[in-house]
């Protein structure tokens, strides 16, 4: 994990960069990205005719490119961008392009510690993945559903293993897709393979698959569960036991299954986006107990608070005892924590963030075009053009708030109590 202890938790407020000046310097400034520690703000900028670069705190990278897109900070604070020069694409990290370049690059993903930067690549019409610029040895004629392990040392995709003529439905139905891990395809093929999950140690891979047009199951390391379902959703690994858990459709209703056996004694009209608590003692999922009615279920027990449109962005507290999520009715988003809906609705909400001691929940929120941080239901007094997700200090006593106000990018460290009131 990233060492947050070393970040500056003392400076209460500083203007890191006045981005108003950027527009004078560059004819084109794209949306801003803030570094995790809040010390830097960056954007893709146009530096000349058909020439792009990345501006960090007002200074552009030395290197320029023909095109730049998907600028993102990794968890370790390094800044990555997909860049192109002379019709070739690669990833530039803190201004330095990878040695290797490709026909195309997309879907850049970071390991939890940020050290490994992985990307979905295309080279000469063949597809695969690259880790820190190093591509798979084997590439495939088609690939989808790119996934990486949490340490970023392994990558996977759903790949096509045999050629198929256009419109050859019979060949397709014979099963010409499988998963490839680090470039090596599973032996067994399927009609389709979709979302995948790596085990926490990165050694195993589970995936949703369709064996025929009608028979769905979960496949782990190339071996399908013995049970067949009429549909399944994305699997996850139990971080402690290594068991695989996925939503499965039995008859007309959905429930969770673990290693091919029903896990919950209750079923729902819908069930997905399941997550384990950090200690793996509890599992939660977004469920629809009734048609068009959404909530959270923990260990099969549905909450009472119901949303008409959707529930998303579930997150367990570090101690695993609490859970926060976002719900939506009509145009209004609300935060729901432990089956209690906060007062106040918003036009947009991001994912809730728990404090390390699990006591406080903060979230990035937007209302009428202004963004702020809301903590335990109470909005921060400052309304900004933009804020980023709040970050708690390791001891939970302070909150790092990154914002843009009047064009100035400001880094603030506030006592948590100032937000909780």
């Amino acid at each position, binding site marked *: 994990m990233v060492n947050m202890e070393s970040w500056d938790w003392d400076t209460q407020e500083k203007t890191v960069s006045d981005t108003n000046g950027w527009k004078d310097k560059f004819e084109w400034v794209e949306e801003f990205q803030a570094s995790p520690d809040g010390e830097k703000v960056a954007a893709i900028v146009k530096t000349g005719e058909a020439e792009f670069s990345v501006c960090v705190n007002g200074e552009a990278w030395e290197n320029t490119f023909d095109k730049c897109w998907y600028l993102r900070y990794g968890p370790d604070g390094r800044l990555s961008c997909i860049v192109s020069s002379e019709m070739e694409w690669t990833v530039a990290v803190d201004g330095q392009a990878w040695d290797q370049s490709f026909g195309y690059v997309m879907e850049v993903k970071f390991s939890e510690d940020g050290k490994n930067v992985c990307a979905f690549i295309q080279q000469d019409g063949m597809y695969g993945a690259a880790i820190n610029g190093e591509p798979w040895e084997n590439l495939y004629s088609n690939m989808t559903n790119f996934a990486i392990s949490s340490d970023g040392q392994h990558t996977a995709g759903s790949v096509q293993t045999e050629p198929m003529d256009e419109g050859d439905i019979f060949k397709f139905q014979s099963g010409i897709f499988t998963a490839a891990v680090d470039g090596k395809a599973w032996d067994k093929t399927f009609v389709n393979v979709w979302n995948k999950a790596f085990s926490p140690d990165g050694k195993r891979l589970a995936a949703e698959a369709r064996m025929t047009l009608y028979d769905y199951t979960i496949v782990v390391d190339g071996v399908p569960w013995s049970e067949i379902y009429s549909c399944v959703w994305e699997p996850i690994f139990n971080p402690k036991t290594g068991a695989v858990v996925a939503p499965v459709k039995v008859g007309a209703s959905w429930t969770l299954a673990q290693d091919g056996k029903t896990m919950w004694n209750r079923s729902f009209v819908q069930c997905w986006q399941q997550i384990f608590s950090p200690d793996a003692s509890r599992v939660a999922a977004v469920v*629809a107990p009734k048609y068009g009615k959404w909530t959270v279920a923990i260990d099969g027990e549905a909450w009472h608070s119901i949303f008409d449109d*959707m529930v998303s962005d579930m997150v367990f507290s570090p101690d695993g005892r609490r859970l926060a999520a976002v719900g939506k009715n009509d145009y209004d988003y609300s935060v729901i924590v432990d089956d209690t809906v906060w007062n106040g609705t918003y036009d947009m909400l991001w994912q809730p963030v728990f404090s390390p001691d699990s006591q406080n929940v903060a979230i990035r929120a937007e209302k009428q075009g202004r963004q702020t941080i809301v903590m335990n239901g109470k909005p921060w007094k400052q309304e900004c053009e933009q804020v980023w997700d709040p970050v708690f200090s390791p001891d939970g006593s302070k909150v790092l708030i990154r914002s843009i106000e009047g064009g100035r990018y400001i880094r603030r460290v506030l006592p948590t109590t100032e937000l909780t009131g």
Partner: protein
Amino acid sequence: MAEGQVIDGIYFNEVWEDAGLDEGTKKLTPEKIEKVINKVLEGETGARLKVYVDTCVHCGLCSDACHYYLSHDKDPTYAPVAKVKQTMWEMIKKKGRVSPTFMKRASQIASTQCNVCMRCAMYCPFGIDIAYIMSVVRRICHFLGITPLYIQDTAHSHAVTMNQMWVKNDEWPDTLQWQEEDAQEEIPTLRIPLEKEGADIMYSVIGPEPKFLAQLLYQAAVIFETAGLNWTMPATPGWDNSDMAMYTCDNEIMGRVKRVHFETARRLRVKKIVMGECGHAFRSIYDRGNRWLAWKMHPVYVEHAIEFYYNLLKSGKIKIAKKYEESVTLHDPCNVMRGRGLYEMARYVVNEMCADFREMEPNREHNYCCCAGGGVINCGPPFKMTRMLGNRVKAEQIAATGAKVCISPCHNCHSGLEDIVSHYKLGVHVKFISDILYEVMEKPGAV
């Protein structure tokens, strides 16, 4: 044309070769048919189907609703109720004990001789939804593996790529970047913002746009740029809102595709989705796909292009520089007219843009179907003549307006109407609203 003939005791009003249907039928056994029919009827249908079947008094009043029936000089085998007779009634009556040839004919009817346009639901005094019954037939055909080849291949494309046209993961953002570059020649500040989290709008389109109709992406970008909107497009699967799996009734794939679409919108934290000029995609997002996933309505508001343009013109965010001079008529696509009631908004937009607008008769929710929708055009070349012969009334309806241009704010309608215009030599140009809007709007940013 292929004349009607009796095969294995089953009357086919048209005979075409289709590998999906022909090969699929060869693999059928009576046992399998019986099992699948009963599985679907018992497992997936309930009061609606039963009540519809028990309520229908065989009065034939739905007949005049159907463009196939009218275009085939009132051949009774094309009447909506006749399609139910030749499929579902028989399956229920015989408790699934029907022959492979019967099922082949049933698939032909449900997949290629019905556009599930729902016009007949408006002509049945009881409001019986024959499109729904035809969908149940298609669902049975899906489980039996007797779906026409081209649309089945498209459903496979959805299953693999989450888009309609086997567009690979890199081809989509790459196309947008090329379109952006091209459009910058006209408007230097123009941007197609990819993956912009927190934008107000996610713009989604259908697979054929990056594949064959990239100018539509260009035009949309010009409209967004000129209106000064905060918008984005995803660079990942989830960008395509279309759904032929909905029409093959591979509901599981339909749901999967819709889930990716809405979850992509949620991931990008957009407040609404604006979609291009497509009808069936709207149906899949607003009616069928969301329901299969247990979303009562769309979980993120979806604004169809017609409503989007209406709001832009009404609010003055887009202004018209000079009205379009050619005479135009408007085709009302079923999925956004009967499906969403956008007819008055469409007329506002057309009247704002065009100097000479002529109504087709009948119009609005009573308009005749294009005969391409409902997945029929997606059944491909083997059934092209089914569409041409099955929609003479549309050709007559367009010709009667005398208009030089037919506006069709739906992709399937657009392609289907182009075929009809050429088959019946109407000499009419078929255009999207955006084709004309792009031409007549003020573009202050253009050089």
